[in-house]
Each structure stands twice: as structure tokens, then as C-alpha cells.
């Protein structure tokens, strides 16, 4: 029984290692980079990230690995970063989802001589504080600002920002940036819509009825964009009023196609995964490093660029 168990366990573990060895790692010049995310297994948004590092690993001829806490528990994530550091890779790419929990392990990795790049979550300031080389992500204020400048060029001077996560200060930065880009005061142009679709729809209708001279609508994600589309259709404003949104989703893509939405802002997760691998590999090989943080977004998705989005949705977009 003893022997049997031992053999069975060894065989099973060995077989799986052999199988996955082919699937995930690209044998190369020996550089190894580990990406640690905060996302649970069930979060499909991160597929793009996995595909991004796999492609970068292939092109740069380096080993790449993706690690995440199965349940999304950030304390488990801290252990994974410690583990990643102990396995002695050339670099670690990680998110900074909770500064309290993760700054210690990341700082330790940096002090052990491992290059770290922060991606997706966190701020450039926090990345600098933990000793990371750079931050690759979408700075929310700047994304809003770019969108505002774009809208100003299209002749917009007033707007309503539909915020479904009013308690999230980072997301609210998008509205502030947009107002600054237009060169107007945000004032009461940001409404707390709540999370419920019918509530969102009715609040948007109420606002637009009370303020009929509003030029533009800005939504902050699929949660607020989808009901807003319905509200505009019901009011007969669809396609008439200027409509921009953050992040992409099925309904948003459809809205862009039908001309209801002028543009969607994509934070381009592919770049958040792909670029750090390329940067770390070149830094290790030739000592070259871009001099600043990299904004992976905002990438504006308009009607013209939709074919690419639809083709690679869920894969690279």
C-alpha cells in the first residue's frame, strides 16, 4: 500500500508536470518572469493578460509564468509574491491591489535584487514607493482628460457623468479628468446612479429631462453604459446626443456599431501584460529602460476600429 501510494502520487504529479511544461513555458535564454495578479480563477477579464504574457514570452524568447490566488484572497496573493521571489526569477510583474498587504512582500522582492514592474492596479506614486521600475496601467484622471479633450474637439461643452461606483474615488477621477479636458467645472454634472439597471436608466432620463441642453453623456463602465443606452433609446436621443464610455462590453460594442456610442475607452490589458515582459527582458539583456511610466490606456475604440475588437475580443482585447 505504501509503495503503491508513493508510485501513484509520483506518477500523477510527474505526468501533469510533463503535460503543463509544454503548455505554459517557453524554453529560452533562461530569463524567467512571473506575473502575479489579484484576480480569482473565475475572472475572465484576465484571460487577455495571460495571452499577453504568453505572446511576449514567445516573442522575447523568455520563460513566463502566471500566478494568481485561486479565490482572489489578497493575503494568499502576498504569499504567492513571496514564493515567486524565493524561486529567484529575473523579474516580477504584479498588481498593487492593496498597498497595506502587498507593499511588504514586493519591497522584499525588490531588495533581493529582483526587478519589479507594477501593472493594472495601484498608482505611479505607490509603484515608486515600493521600489518598482515603473507602472504600466491606465491613469484614470489622464484617461478622463484625454477623453475630455477629444470631446471638446468634437464641440462638446457640457456633459453628465453617470457614476455607478460613487464610493470608488479612483473611478470618480475619470469624471474629474473629463471635465478638466472640456475646460468646464465638474460641479453637479456627476450623478450617483447606484448599481441597479432600472434605477440607473431612470436617473439618466430624469437628469436629461431636467437639463435638456446637456451635450454629452459619459458612463464609467458596462454597468452604467448598458442602461444608459436604453434610456437614450426611450427618449429618442440615441445617436443624437454625444455618448462616450469607459471599458468595453458586448452592449457597448453593439452601441458603437449602431452609432449610439461615439467611442469606448479601452485600458488595453494586453499591453499591461505584454509590455512589462518586453521591458524587463530588454532591461536584463541590454540595460535599457524607458524613462517613465507607461499608460496602457486610454485606447479609443470607435466604429472604424471595431473589426479588430470583435475579432480578438476575449483573446487580446
Amino acid at each position, binding site marked *: 500500500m505504501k509503495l503503491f501510494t508513493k508510485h501513484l502520487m509520483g506518477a500523477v504529479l510527474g505526468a501533469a508536470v510533463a503535460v503543463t511544461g509544454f503548455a505554459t513555458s517557453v524554453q529560452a535564454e533562461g530569463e524567467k518572469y512571473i506575473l502575479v495578479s489579484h484576480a480569482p480563477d473565475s475572472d475572465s477579464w484576465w484571460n487577455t493578460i495571460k495571452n499577453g504574457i504568453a505572446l511576449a514570452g514567445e516573442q522575447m524568447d523568455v520563460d513566463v*509564468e502566471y500566478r494568481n490566488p485561486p479565490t482572489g484572497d489578497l493575503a494568499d496573493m502576498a504569499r504567492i509574491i513571496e514564493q515567486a521571489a524565493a524561486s529567484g526569477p529575473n523579474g516580477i510583474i504584479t498588481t498593487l491591489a492593496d498597498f497595506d498587504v502587498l507593499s511588504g512582500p514586493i*519591497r522584499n522582492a525588490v531588495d533581493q535584487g529582483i526587478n519589479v514592474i507594477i501593472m493594472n492596479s495601484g498608482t505611479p506614486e505607490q509603484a515608486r514607493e515600493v521600489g518598482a521600475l515603473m507602472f504600466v496601467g491606465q491613469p484614470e484622471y489622464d484617461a478622463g482628460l484625454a477623453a475630455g479633450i477629444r470631446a471638446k474637439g468634437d464641440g462638446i461643452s457640457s456633459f453628465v457623468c453617470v457614476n455607478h461606483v460613487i464610493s470608488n474615488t479612483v473611478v470618480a477621477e475619470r469624471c474629474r479628468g473629463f471635465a478638466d479636458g472640456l475646460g468646464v467645472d465638474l460641479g453637479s454634472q456627476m450623478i450617483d446612479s447606484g448599481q441597479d439597471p432600472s434605477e440607473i436608466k431612470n436617473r439618466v432620463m430624469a437628469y436629461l429631462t431636467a437639463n435638456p441642453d446637456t451635450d454629452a453623456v459619459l458612463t464609467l463602465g458596462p454597468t452604467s453604459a448598458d442602461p444608459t443606452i436604453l434610456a437614450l433609446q426611450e427618449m429618442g436621443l440615441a445617436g443624437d446626443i454625444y455618448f462616450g464610455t469607459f471599458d468595453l462590453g458586448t452592449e457597448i460594442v453593439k452601441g458603437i456599431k449602431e452609432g449610439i456610442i461615439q467611442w469606448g475607452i479601452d485600458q488595453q490589458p494586453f499591453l499591461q501584460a505584454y509590455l512589462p515582459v518586453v521591458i524587463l527582458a530588454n532591461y536584463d539583456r541590454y540595460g535599457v529602460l524607458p524613462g517613465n511610466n507607461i499608460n496602457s490606456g486610454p485606447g479609443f475604440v470607435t466604429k472604424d476600429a471595431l473589426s479588430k475588437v470583435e475579432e480578438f475580443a476575449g483573446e487580446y482585447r
Partner: protein
Amino acid sequence: MSDAAQGDERIKEISGFRKSLIRPELGGIVGAIAVFTFFILFAHDSGMFNSQGVLNWSIVSAQFMIIAVGACLLMIAGEFDLSVGSMIGFAGMMIAIFSVTLGWPVWMAILVTFVLCVAIGALNGYIVVRTGLPSFIVTLAFLFILRGFTIFLPQTVERKTIIGGIRDVAEGDWLAPIFGGKIGGPIFQWMGEAGLIAVFERGNRAGEPVVDGIPMLIIWALALVAFGHFLLTRTRFGNWIFAAGGDAQAARYVGVPVNRVKILMFMFTAFCATVFATCQVMEFGSAGADRGLLKEFEAIIAVVIGGALLTGGYGSVIGAALGALIFGVVQQGLFFAGVESSLFRVFLGVILLMAVILNTYIRRMITGER
């Protein structure tokens, strides 16, 4: 002793080999040897066995051990607790709310949280013994109730689901280092200077050892295992635990206070979960609403790998500790061996299945059933 045993016709002769085979720890010992052999073969050069690597899987194993000890004793007493994971989240959040939001001293926040959580454990146990409902259902209810409060309370008082800043308020507290501190600093300092373990290469801690002490989490795990093992095998109360889980009615007839034993075991499980939560909160300095997800199953899995029977009345704390060790080493070791992390659950399932099959085989040997 052997004279007396041989002279007593009531005691059946059992060969030493068979005796060693029916020990509940057997599966755990075999598994631990197999797992270590495997990783020494496949991951010896990956950093898994340097100082940081050893500390990494030791901490993860110690975490499992802390909750496995409670779950093990409770399972031997014939009950389950599915609220362990939610209890971890809840306890951590209560400490954060008491100390950060309400501004209590940290020692008081910790003590009040312990009292509160152990009381909830007692309530769990009381409902189970009074209603006679399966503990599976009662604690499943508390899984949702406690998780719900863990999300609701911080949202109500702080408008967010992660409360940070505990490390700052715990500064200088007398109780906090017992959960979040490290011991043996000078020894590691010396080992670092002697070049035995890795030191930081850069930054303002350059030259200091990367591993600068043994976290109290590991000390707690070992202490709880020692306590649990002593309680179970060396005391009258330990016999009561076996009796309550083996056949509760028979135990009652011979005067074992079965209800009291079960309620006390629910309280002990809650205590272990709170120790886990306190160590985690003190180390990371923040409490999150999603902490401890699925930990109840991880505790049960460690206990089952360690040879306890799901039906109760049979098991060992040492076995559960070995189960936790196997679990932790496999979980972290697969990362070191470079296996795709989503396959971790496949291994978990395979190991669990093998452990249960082995256990069933052993039980048939003991009871002689076919």
C-alpha cells in the same frame, strides 16, 4: 507490561506491523515522505529549499495547521464546521473595526474579538446539539451569516470593504507581537552574516537576512498541534471526544457529557479560526471582506488527508498537522516546480481522493467489514 498483556486472554494479539498500519497518522506520514521526495527531485534547484522558500511553504502549512487542529478535534467529536472561512474574515474585520474605526487599544480589540468569535462558536454548537440538526447545515448557515456581516459592517462604517492601517495602531501594543511578531531574529542575523542564508542585495536593508525570524504564526501552529495532541491522547477529555464522535448514544450511557464536549469543540474551532485571523491581520495590517474564502474546506481536506474519518470517532491531531504540511508543500511546491497554477485544484482533488481511499482501506482493516 508484556507479561500482563500476554496473560490476559481478553486482549487480542495484534502484530506490530498491523498495529503500525492502523495508526491514523500512517497516510499522513506516507504522503509527507512522498511529497517531499517528489519536490526534492523536481524542484530542488528552484529556490524551494533555500531559506525564503522553506519559510514560504512553512507559513502556508502553518496556516492550514492552525485551522486543521480545530477542525480535526471537531471532526473526531463527530461534527463539521463550515463557517471556519467566514469566521476568519469576520474575526479579522472585527479587529479592524474595533481598533481602527472605534480607536480601541489593539489588545482590547483582539480580546473582545476572541470572546465574540468563541461565543459564536458556542452558539453554533448549542444550535447543533439542541436541535439535533446536522452540523453541516447549521454551520453552512453561519458561513453565509458571518460573511454577510463581514461585507456589510465595513461598508456601513467606512464605505469600503478593506480596512487598513492596523499596523500603525498596533505599534507598541503588548498583545499584537504575540500574533504578528517574529522570534529568533539574532540567530537569523548571525546566519545571514555567516553566509548560510540569503541576504538583501540592495535597498536600505542591504546585508540583512531576507528571512529575519520565525513568524509567530508558525509558533502558534506548533503550540496548537501540541496542545491538541496532548488533549486527545493523554487526557480523559480526549477519550470523551473519541466517544462523542464514535457513538454519541453509547457515550451518553456511560456518562460522557456529549453535548458539552461538542459545544466545547465548536468553541475551540472558532478559537483556532480567530488565531488564524489575528495573525493574518497583524502581519498584513489590513482586513478584507474576502479573507478566508474556502478555508473551511481546506481545513477539512487537511484533516482528511491526515487520516481522520468523516464519520467521526477516529483521527489524530498529528495526522491533521501532517495533512496540513502536505497541503501547504504541494500548494507552494507546484508553483516552485513551475506547474500552471490553475492545475493546483486537480492535484488537490487527486491527493484528497487518494487519502480517502487509503483511509477507507484502513477502516475496513480495523473493523473487519468487507
